[in-house]
């Protein structure tokens, strides 16, 4: 009798906590509203105007009569700001934005039954912590990718095994010091790269999650990065500038994205990339729907369209990312069958996906928040 009561309470508790989220969720789809407004990363929603071969919008517009309007955003913060202002239906949010949007109640739960292509989605991404909260899906995965260690193959005959080549002073295989020849990303989120390295290098710190650091762990990260400053001529922010740094500035090892590595390889430069034994950070983006979306039917149609293997493969080829739909990896002319592997498909388990560090955290109770990371990383670079 008692156990029944407990069970009843448990059921009540679960349903009541999920109910508000589910109540607003769409039950069925109606006709399209004629348009859909999307906030996206540059290159994420292409209609053929950049390159005729890369177009996953025109067919959608013809088939659904939903005109696609895109507003590109350059940073996660800009995306959050735009969604807070409203007037958009969808956003392609990275992990350092998606949970903020959920917490701010700016995005709505998604009814996956209305998205036939949901079954195509990589199972590893379907209920990832950056798109699913308490079992409720807030959007469909779009693309992901690792932050790789790019290196010069003339200097490294074998791929470097550890991130230490960019973090600690040492002689590289060509006998010269790494001083002035390595780079790191300029944004504070790059501090997580150092945290990932310290997880293996100094296990006594007990770092469980590179985005959840207590004061001591954080101090160790800052100390490592302060030492690294002497090795780094300039931190990279712009992908095109980093490509140039590899070509003309004698940079031989740096954290990077598959995008730059693909560009450099296409240019026949001796550059390759690897994910060292410590693992790596990465990003995973989710298409999320605004809580007050004016065009929900067109938005659902786009969500479904965005999970078509053809679309997924084309985006991955254009952006240098990994599709959220594994079926996209085969038979795509633009991506080619080797594309997924090149962009990091097999490395999912080695990746700690980007999240915004917050004051409250699971691993340590209280953690150092992102605003502090930001201030300290500026100070480190100024040293």
């Amino acid at each position, binding site marked *: 009798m008692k156990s029944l009561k407990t069970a009843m309470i448990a059921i009540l508790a679960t349903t009541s906590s999920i109910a508000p989220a589910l109540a607003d969720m769409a039950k069925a789809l109606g006709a399209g509203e004629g348009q859909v407004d999307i906030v996206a990363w540059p290159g994420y929603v292409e209609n053929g105007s950049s390159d005729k071969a890369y177009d996953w919008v025109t067919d959608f517009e013809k088939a659904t009569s939903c005109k696609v309007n895109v507003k590109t955003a350059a940073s996660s913060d800009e995306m959050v700001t735009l969604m807070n202002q409203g007037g958009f239906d969808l956003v392609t949010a990275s992990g350092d934005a998606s949970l903020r949007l959920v917490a701010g109640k700016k995005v709505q739960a998604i009814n996956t039954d209305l998205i036939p292509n949901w079954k195509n989605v990589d199972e590893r991404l379907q209920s990832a912590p950056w798109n699913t909260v308490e079992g409720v899906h807030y959007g469909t995965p779009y693309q992901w990718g690792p932050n790789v260690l790019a290196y010069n193959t003339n200097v490294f005959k074998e791929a470097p095994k550890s991130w230490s080549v960019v973090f600690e002073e040492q002689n590289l295989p060509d006998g010269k010091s790494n001083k002035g020849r390595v780079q790191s990303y300029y944004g504070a989120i790059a501090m997580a790269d150092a945290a990932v390295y310290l997880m293996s290098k100094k296990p006594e710190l007990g770092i469980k999650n590179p985005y959840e650091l207590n004061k001591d762990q954080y101090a160790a990260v800052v100390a490592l990065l302060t030492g690294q400053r002497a090795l780094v001529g*300039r931190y990279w922010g712009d992908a095109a500038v980093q490509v140039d740094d590899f070509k*003309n*500035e*004698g940079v031989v090892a740096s954290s990077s994205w598959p995008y730059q590595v693909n560009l450099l390889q296409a240019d026949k430069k001796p550059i390759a990339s690897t994910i060292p034994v410590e693992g790596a950070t990465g990003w995973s983006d989710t298409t999320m729907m605004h809580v007050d979306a004016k065009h929900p039917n067109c938005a659902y149609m786009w969500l479904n369209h965005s999970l078509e293997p053809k679309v997924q493969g084309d985006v991955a080829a254009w952006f240098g990312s990994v599709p959220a739909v594994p079926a996209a990896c085969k038979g795509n002319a633009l991506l080619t069958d080797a594309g997924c592997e090149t962009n990091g498909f097999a490395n999912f388990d080695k990746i700690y996906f980007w999240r915004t560090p917050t004051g409250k955290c699971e691993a340590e109770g209280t953690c150092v928040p*992102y605003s*502090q990371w930001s201030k300290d990383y500026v100070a480190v*670079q*100024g040293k």
Partner: protein
Amino acid sequence: MPQPLSTLFFRKPGLLTAVVMAPPLLWLVVVYLGSLAALLLQSFYALDDFSGLIIHEFTLSTYAHLFDEANYQIILRTLTMSAAVTVASVIIAFPIAYYAARFATGKMKAFFYLAIMMPLWSSYLVKIYAWKLILAKEGIITWVATNLHAQWLIDGILSIPAIGGSSLSFSYIGTFLVFVYIWLPYMILPIQSSLERVPTSFIEASADLGATPRQTFRNVIFPLAFPGVVAGSIFTFSLTLGDYIVPQIVGNSRLMIGQAVYTFQGTSGDIPLAAAFTVVAMIIMGIYLTLAKRLGAFDAL
């Protein structure tokens, strides 16, 4: 009987002025001063270090943060760079402006105007990226130096502590050179126009009274052209003070004020600190403009 509008305006001339001036005034007050006021207001808020959220309560703690070692260094660095760029611009611009104003005639004068103005016609970004290629470790300057067996010279310059670095484009020297190149026309033009306004009769009178050319320059021409120098320096100083693109592309990742504003506002959401940095830049320019006004710079524009 209803009055025609023209009669009304004729009787009350103030009304016509009000109607005509209202839209631009509204623009100035609401959009320009309004955003400045919002900025000022933001700088008196602070970010909660724990949650990363902005606390909407009056506090001076954000301004106190400006005196943290890292932030204070940013301000100092930017001021030093702006001053260095301004001084170098004056030294380079004055002889050019002097020749263009006093000696060049006809085709030569047209050539000078074109040569000074031409860089302003191409995109600012293109010029900066071009300079990155010139200054790169494997760029044009290094190539020339290697062929002249003068690589030791570049290595020597780069090994100077503080301003050196691993490559010209990764150092303060590089940032400085690009700034001087980009803003030089803004220095040349006001100096040239103030030199052109020095009456020839003054110079002749000076010579007639027995002054040597050097004395004439020191006592007649330079004092009269000085307001133009100050006017030009307003441009070079303020443009360097606020720029965030040049040091981002050519530099060593040590932030300047403009980049700090961009970083704190754009990536970390710390709008109060970004606003406080902006206020610093405004105060510096306020002081600079007051001094410039005393030196007569605005008469030269």
